[in-house]
């Protein structure tokens, strides 16, 4: 009996700590619902990228990854709730300030701004920023062409960007096909279908979801 009591006494602090932690978490959850902290304004106070860059003390690329992960989390949360992504441009700008050679934030940020927020000019601005920092990257020029074609319906500009992309090192073969197709059949519905199919094949899971939706809108059958 004595032994049992000794064990119980040894376990008591752990049980008490567990109870306190559970209580704290319950309180936090209740507060979250009541005061809505961590809600839609959560990134309003995200500092500027240049400031973070100075504060990163040489660890800018790791800080860029943290900002990137935070941006994706923000996008994912709002995608499931109100579909408002007001701060996404700000977060992607911060990532770009911290790591200008990180390509995905320009592409994803530009895509969300242009396609989801219906702000193609802002999206293209982010992509342009990426192109200035990475002038030899075909992907950024191709994405700019894509946004010009699909969001702004500026087929001439799209053709120009696809041609640019096709002249850059490392581009895949389909870029040349798009460049030729865009200049010949500008405005063709089939071209938009092909572009969205490329997003479906190469984009991240969120971009693929949008591509599926758009392809359905174009009357295409898409595998779920």
């Amino acid at each position, binding site marked *: 009996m004595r032994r049992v009591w000794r064990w119980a006494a040894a376990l008591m602090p752990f049980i008490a700590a567990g109870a306190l932690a559970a209580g704290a978490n319950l309180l936090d959850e209740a507060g979250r619902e009541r005061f809505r902290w961590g809600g839609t304004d959560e990134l309003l106070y995200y500092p500027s990228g240049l400031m973070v860059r100075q504060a990163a*003390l040489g660890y800018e690329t*790791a800080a*860029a990854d943290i900002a990137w992960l935070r941006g994706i989390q923000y996008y994912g949360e709002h995608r499931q709730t109100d579909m408002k992504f007001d701060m996404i441009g700000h977060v992607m700008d911060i990532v770009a300030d911290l*790591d200008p050679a990180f390509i995905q934030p320009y592409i994803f940020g530009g895509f969300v701004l242009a396609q989801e927020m219906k702000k193609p000019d802002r999206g293209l601005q982010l992509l342009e920023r990426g192109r200035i920092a990475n002038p030899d990257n075909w992907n950024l020029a191709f994405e700019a062409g894509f946004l010009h074609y699909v969001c702004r319906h500026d087929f001439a500009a799209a053709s120009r960007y696809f041609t640019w992309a096709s002249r850059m090192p490392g581009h895949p073969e389909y870029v040349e096909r798009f460049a030729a197709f865009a200049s010949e059949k500008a405005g063709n519905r089939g071209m938009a279908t092909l572009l969205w199919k490329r997003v479906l094949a190469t984009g991240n899971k969120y971009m693929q979801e949008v591509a599926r939706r758009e392809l359905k809108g174009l009357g295409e059958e898409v595998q779920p």
Partner: protein
Amino acid sequence: MSRVLAVARNTIREVLRERIVLVLAIFGAALVFASQVLSPLALGEGKKVVTDFGLAGSSLLATLLAVFLGSSLLHKELDRRTIYAVMAKPIRRSEFLMGKFLGLWTTTGFLLAGMTLMVLALLTVVHHETPWILLGSLLLTLMELGIVTAFVILFSSFTTPGLTAFFTLGVIVTGSFAEQILYFGGQGESSLVAGLTGAFYWALPHLSTFNVRGMVTHGVAVPPERIAFGVSYALLYMGAVLTIAGAIFERRDFR
């Protein structure tokens, strides 16, 4: 040289006895594996996340270990009065200091190298790619660590552990801003401020010289000339700092 190596060996043994080394090593390994857990959330950028977090984490942990462990290294010898026994032997104070420096640098360097190799192994196993170019970053970070360790030894040669850690962290922060300090000093109209910031710039270690983490993460190999310049700069700078440390320690009254 054999006397210096004897002190260094002893310092490594002493440092390895500290629990904080084991704690930081476990924490470092956990950080590398945690970055792999995070990578699926990065929408296709998992490899970059693992590399960035791994390199940044290894550098940060090794620096913290050098600062916090090194700051009490000399103080302990003085506090326990073991230094009298050492000084009674035919060894110069500067040799003793050099041995301490080499011992501390080797230990922290092993932590750094171990974590970087862990990142390499993880990338090989999970991402099926072995970016050997990370070794260029490892070498330069090792040099940066050498400079930080030299400063720890310099400050601990004349002040308390707390102040040593504080001063060294100050050097790391200002050393990361060295170029900006020079730039902003040159923007004003005062030639005195420009002169002072210029002097400050030349006195501070230019730690950004050793930061090639962003470069290797994006698959760009560090040019051999840059490595050669970095290593030469670090060795010269360490030599300068340790010379001052030796001169101060030679004159220090142990009572």
